[in-house]
């Protein structure tokens, strides 16, 4: 295996054309990822025609570099202007943007770039060594297992275990309810669309995300004093980069995030989005200061970022080994593979071994290039945000406007964005948490779909969720997570009352 990888590196490094496409891919990917609404899927889909005239290796490298680059790029707009570039970068807004508001935009960008690199390298190592083994385990996840996993993520991530969970519960339920809008995938019935044809496919995640975070941010910015605008503008050069000790202190969260991202990435379906939420949840649970999450906790940034990029390596495993894409982006990559005459599946390693191992090597090189590019441009980004601070309100609004239109070329989406911008504004005004709402909106369709599939395949037998060991494990974990804080609370109350006595 190692000798094949070494040959892959030799092939890659001795091909100037492939190296050039790798550089172009990571640059384009970063730019595409940073644009609101445009993620890896759109990026790869738009640039797919470019690969038609290339050789197999170059086209594969270009697509993989765009995929990885957009994962890096998505975090830039999340941190700087609170507008997620794509779904996987949503969690980055939770702590990345508050850090930027504290004058630590450069710090947040560098830390997230390092975390992305760690995640990317973890994904690479996993991809090289575990391709065949993990692909087998991924197939053990059926609808019941997915349902339990998503339920666990929802319960933990939505803060339902907090002292006063009423508002998170309402936000979660509202997110779940709105996620049901659209054509029912099982029966084909139109539901809760109010007669709008545009709602048949449901509401787009990016549209809602840009409205909730971007437009509400614009409205909030207007409320802040003209002199400060809420963001520190006096940024010292030294504050642009985290200290070595700060990076070291985040190593744990990066490794945890990488493991989560890689494993979830391998599972066909949920991909980067679920992995970032899961990683955020784990970091919040493990933190000694969970209250700092959402206010600029470095672990809330580094964990999900590592997980986001590790999921790329994970998602490529079933794509290469089984011919089953691990995510929508991987599906487009698979389309690219097929178009250049490569047949993904177990025989790929036998028939096109050189190209596959060279592309694995290219994946690692792309990660290194992205780290260099992203860290090198941190001062430029920080300076830019400092200079255009006063111009940000219409700038964000304009980019949200065009970004949302670009998703489906629909003005209806812009209306939705404005409505959800107002909803987001009032959520923030009344202290309703936005994150649980959005978590639930994204995970809702997966939750319902897997619930129904599980019941359907078990011919109505609800015990299906308890029969599977994996599903049972997640259900027990969910129950523990729900019960534990209350037990702790009771214990504390008993202790304090006994002291008084």
């Amino acid at each position, binding site marked *: 295996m190692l000798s094949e990888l070494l040959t892959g590196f030799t092939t890659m490094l001795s091909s100037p054309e492939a190296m050039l496409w790798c550089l172009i891919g990571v640059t384009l990917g970063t730019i595409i990822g940073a644009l609101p609404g445009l993620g890896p899927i759109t990026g790869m889909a738009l640039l797919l025609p470019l690969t038609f005239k290339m050789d197999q290796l170059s086209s594969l490298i270009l697509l993989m570099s765009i995929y990885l680059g957009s994962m890096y790029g998505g975090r830039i707009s999340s941190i700087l202007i609170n507008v997620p570039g794509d779904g996987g970068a949503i969690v980055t807004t939770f702590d990345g943007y508050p850090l930027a508001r504290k004058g630590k935009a450069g710090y947040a960008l560098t830390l997230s770039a390092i975390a992305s690199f760690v995640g990317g390298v973890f994904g690479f190592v996993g991809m090289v060594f575990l391709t065949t083994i993990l692909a087998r385990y991924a197939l053990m996840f059926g609808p019941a297992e997915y349902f339990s996993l998503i339920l666990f993520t929802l319960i933990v991530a939505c803060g339902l275990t907090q002292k006063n969970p*009423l508002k998170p519960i309402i936000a979660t339920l509202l997110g779940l*309810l709105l996620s049901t809008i659209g054509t029912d995938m099982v*029966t084909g019935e139109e539901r809760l669309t109010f007669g709008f044809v545009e709602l048949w496919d449901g509401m787009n995640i990016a549209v809602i995300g840009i409205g909730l975070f971007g437009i509400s941010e614009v*409205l909030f910015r207007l409320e802040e004093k003209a002199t400060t605008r809420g963001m520190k503008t006096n940024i010292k050069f030294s504050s642009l980069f985290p200290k070595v000790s700060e990076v070291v202190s985040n190593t744990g969260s990066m490794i945890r995030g990488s493991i989560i991202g890689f494993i979830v990435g391998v599972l066909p379906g949920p991909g980067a989005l679920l992995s970032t939420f899961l990683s955020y949840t784990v970091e919040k649970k493990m933190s000694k200061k969970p209250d700092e999450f959402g206010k600029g906790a470095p672990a809330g940034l580094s964990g999900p970022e590592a997980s986001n990029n590790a999921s790329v390596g994970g998602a490529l495993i079933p794509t290469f080994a089984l011919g089953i894409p691990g995510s929508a982006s991987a599906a487009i990559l698979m389309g690219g593979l097929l178009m250049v005459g490569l047949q993904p599946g177990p025989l790929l390693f036998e028939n096109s071994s050189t190209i596959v191992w060279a592309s694995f090597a290219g994946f690692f090189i792309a990660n290194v290039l992205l780290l260099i590019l992203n860290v090198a441009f941190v001062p430029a980004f920080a300076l830019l945000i400092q200079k255009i601070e006063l111009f940000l*309100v219409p700038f964000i609004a304009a980019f949200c406007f065009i970004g949302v*239109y*670009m998703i489906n070329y629909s003005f209806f989406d812009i209306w939705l964005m404005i409505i959800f911008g107002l909803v987001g504004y009032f959520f923030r005004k*009344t202290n309703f948490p936005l994150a649980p709402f959005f978590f639930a909106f994204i995970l809702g369709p997966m939750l319902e779909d897997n619930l129904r599939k599980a019941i359907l395949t078990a011919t*109505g037998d609800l015990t299906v969720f308890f029969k599977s060991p994996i599903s049972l494990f997640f259900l027990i974990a969910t129950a523990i997570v729900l019960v534990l804080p209350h037990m702790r609370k009771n214990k504390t109350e008993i202790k304090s009352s006994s002291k008084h006595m």
Partner: protein
Amino acid sequence: MFVERYFGFFLLFVCTVFLIMSFGLPVYSTNLGAVGAGLFPRIISILLFLFLCFHLFQIMRLKKKEAEEQVDKKTRFQQIFLIVFLVVTIGLSYVIGMLASIGVFMFTILAFVQKIPWFKAFTFTIVVLIMMYVIFELWLDSPLPLGIFG
């Protein structure tokens, strides 16, 4: 408290609409022998309705009025102006095209809301428009509405 109360009632209204609509959907799909399209929305909307009622009950019970962060009239006007102008920009896009209408939007907000000198506002708008033109029209080859320029 004032905003919270009204927003709570707004959410309750939305939830009630969804709840009523969910009753029009089948809970079981007899043809496919599976769970119907209405089960999930109905369960969720019933739960949401109950929690919202409890939330509103809690708010109404609070006798003391908590100090609410006040937004001055000028800022409120600016916020409303921005939202209204975004809506106007949608309409304008059909007439003068998307890029031009975004240009009008940006310049208006910069000059009249942000009170940035006209020349600076104009220059920034032009730079952003060129950037958008290069990215969306030339590079990504996206069919942006052109209006009368089409």
